[in-house]
């Protein structure tokens, strides 16, 4: 969806980040990897020895590597598709990403009606009209705390809802 509104040249440098547990089987995987060049990451970090921090660290390194010098990532900071009535709480991943790469711009993008086109758990979409709204990039303070960074990002996104 978001991908389809980007110009071709930008599209080639943009990779959506998707959950490995959902997108890793058969056809889904082929679509995700071949068509969208998606970056699959672990969502439920439960390594055998229970070392969450190391697993999260590994995911973050994957993202940083994919970002490189000139690429963009599409991150869904809610981490899941909720009921779609309001914007859910953000996971902290984008904060850690920002701390590693403060030079990268974080552009909030609001996708309207997506939950009505294809709610979670459905397989046939309804052709409802959707809208993609891009906001101005976030401008965090140099030493923003995790909570205030995530709140700022959340507010920026919710502000796009009613434009």
């Amino acid at each position, binding site marked *: 969806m978001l991908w389809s509104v980007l110009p071709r040249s930008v599209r080639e440098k943009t990779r959506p980040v998707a959950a490995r547990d959902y997108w890793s089987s058969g056809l889904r995987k082929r679509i995700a990897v071949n068509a969208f060049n998606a970056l699959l990451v672990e969502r439920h970090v439960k390594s055998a020895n229970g070392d969450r921090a190391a697993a999260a660290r590994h995911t973050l390194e994957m993202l940083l590597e994919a970002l490189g010098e000139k690429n963009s990532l599409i991150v869904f900071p809610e981490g899941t598709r909720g009921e779609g009535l309001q914007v859910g709480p953000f996971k902290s991943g984008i904060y850690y990403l920002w701390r590693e790469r403060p030079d990268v711009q974080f552009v909030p993008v609001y996708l309207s*009606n997506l939950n*009505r086109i294809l*709610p979670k758990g*459905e397989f046939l979409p*309804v052709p*409802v*009209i959707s*809208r993609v709204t891009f906001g101005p990039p976030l401008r965090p303070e140099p030493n923003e705390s995790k909570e205030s960074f995530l709140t700022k990002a959340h507010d920026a996104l919710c502000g796009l809802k009613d434009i």
Partner: protein
Amino acid sequence: MKFKSDQQMLWILGAVVAGLVVASALGYVLARRAESEERKAAIDNLNARIRAWWIMIGIFTISFVIGPAGSMLLFAFISLLALREYVSLITSTRADHRTLVWSFFVFNPLQYWFWYQGWYGLAIILIPVYAFLFIPIRLALAGDVGGFLDRAARIQWGLMVCVYCISYAPALLTLQIPGYSGQDAKLLLFLVIVVQLSDVFQYVWGKLLGKRKIAPAISPHKTWGGFVGGVATAVALGTGLWWMTPFSPLQALGMSFAIALMGFAGGLTMSAIKRDRGVKDFGHTIEGHGGILDRMDSICFSAPLFFHLTRWLFISPHPNWWP
């Protein structure tokens, strides 16, 4: 069913295209001369209407060339787009999803398939009987009781207007009127022309002498002056087109009157829906305005009546007391 190449058809299409060329040229000149913002907006609106006319006449010409199957497909697609706009405008919950899938991908194609097959009896009851029963059943199965009746009614009304009513326009091609075989496309053209003339002249007369508003809460543009002038003009011009229809001039007058009246009612009703949604939910107003449904609203309401009146006059067996 196959359309004969038809001298009358070429004449009327030629006349419409000529009229559109003049209107477009006029619109272009006006747009260049417009100075104040208010005038500019009014002329932009006028030009949008002229463009819609071009599209409609293009659609009609295509459906005339490829025949009834093409017309059915075209109108099925128009219904799909109209339903899409409608569903985008209303609210729906997650529990409505499967019901909407059925509406879009089962009831819409089935409705046109029945008409194409000429199964009149099935085509006229599919949505008002079976879909109307199916929708609440499917919603009940989805298990969410919140606003149940509202949600069912919203989807039912969407199917009714966007699919059922619009499907009556190409259904005109399935009427086998004695002595008029192969010429049904002109009936469809007659409907479209009268509806659109009525819309256009209501607008024009409204600008010229519209003062008292008919329903200020619903539409600021609908005035008594515009209504009377528009309907009268459409009836006069429609009557003048009797030669392309199976009607006598008097019948053509009655038909034009019915079409223009229902067209007005359609515009008013759909405006009420838009106004209602506009107030409650700003999120969708932009997408919901200015689409297929805005241009089809008057046809939605006039097509069923026109179809049944024509069928009554030429096909149905009449009771003994009928002269």
